[in-house]
């Protein structure tokens, strides 16, 4: 499944980081508009996969992009790629949106009590490098693992439901997912690009 991604690549990633930092530093609206142009349709696609309607998805996209504006100062290019940072914002919106009663506030983005995250497998490298390796590693996954990863992250279902819908034993789903994640960790650690 190759798709044309003219803007994909390291330089594009760097540019996106610059854009978030411009929003953080000077409330740069043009930079924000570029971010919106790039990510709003992806965030919408993410929410659409979660079986929300188009109008609802647009509303959630608005909220997520508002959070991007408000939280721009918290973005740290050494910690994560822009895509990852925006994914966590959209994901947390999703958790919040799925609640039946949205009181009291649920603010999952609040920072930790301990200052430094212990470097996980993906944090020992520069975030940009990690993002490039991860991208290649995901592309190199066997179809069945890639599909499960996609289901796990982008469908409104838990492991158990994945197992049911695939007609697979739960243990198989979990071991395949685990295999996929282990493979990604290894690829990132070793710098394999799978190509």
């Amino acid at each position, binding site marked *: 499944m190759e*798709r044309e991604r003219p803007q*994909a690549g390291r330089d594009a990633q760097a540019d996106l980081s610059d854009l978030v930092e411009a929003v953080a530093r000077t409330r740069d609206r043009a930079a924000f*508009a570029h971010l*919106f142009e790039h990510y*709003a349709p*992806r965030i*919408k696609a*993410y929410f*659409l996969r979660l079986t929300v309607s188009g109008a609802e998805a*647009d509303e959630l*996209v*608005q909220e997520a*992009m*508002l959070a991007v*504006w*408000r*939280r721009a100062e918290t973005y740290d290019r050494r*910690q994560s*790629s822009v*895509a*990852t*940072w925006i*994914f*966590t914002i959209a994901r*947390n919106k*999703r*958790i919040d949106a*799925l*609640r*039946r*009663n949205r009181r*009291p506030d*649920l*603010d*999952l983005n*609040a920072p*930790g*009590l*301990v200052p430094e*995250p*212990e*470097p*996980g497998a993906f*944090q020992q490298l520069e975030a940009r490098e990690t*993002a490039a390796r*991860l*991208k290649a590693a*995901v592309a190199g996954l066997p179809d069945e693992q890639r599909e499960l*990863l996609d289901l*796990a*992250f*982008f469908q409104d279902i*838990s*492991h*158990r*439901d994945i197992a049911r819908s695939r007609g697979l034993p739960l243990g198989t789903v*979990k071991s395949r997912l*685990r*295999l996929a*994640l282990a493979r990604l960790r290894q690829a990132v650690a070793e710098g394999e690009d799978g190509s």
Partner: protein
Amino acid sequence: MGMAQHTDDLGEGSTGGDAGGGVASGHHLPEAVLLDYAAGAISGPTALLVASHLAFCARCRGDAASLDAVGGTLLAEIEPAAVAPALLHSVLARIDEMPVTAAPSPQNLAPADADLPAPLRRALGRPLGRLAWKPFLPGLRQVRVLADKGDVARLMLIRPGAAFPRHTHGGLELTLVLRGGYSDEIGRFRAGDVSVADGSVRHRPKADPGEDCLCLLVSEAPLRLTGWIGRWFNPVIPF
């Protein structure tokens, strides 16, 4: 949704298993819970407990960050869907309406209870001392924090040396120690530690002497108390 899907991970957590993340301790979050959190396939109460543990635990934060990076990679690759043409303008209009100091930061929170995770303080909305604590059992007080789709998050305050009656669980129960510590048949837990229990676990948590033990509990179904005190109290426990 709910949490039932995790119950069969319990054994793996305590025996070490072959989890890629190397989660071998019962004092951290099971890998499956971290994955469901990363994917957003998790209820509000459980997400609150996960975020609160992450505030304490650099190791699980590292694991969660790795899973987030996978999500970010998938988001970068997703087939975009066109948004309504006027959406950018409407977002910019909302930005114009925002107060200048709109950024919600922990600094905006009351300094009280600064040792508690920020997501929890935000959900509580007020200092611990001003919550509507309800007497629960001798030596125990509780207050409900968040409920959603059958999952309930509660704060439980246990006096030094007091014990929770022996009980089992209808569904999965996650406990995060916030202050003090307790011991039970599973082990010893201190501030920041997570304990995971399901119907196969029958335990009697006892607070350490010398200090109140404050815990965040998330349960997906009412506890079933066992033993005489349990039979006495079961019908009246206000979940």
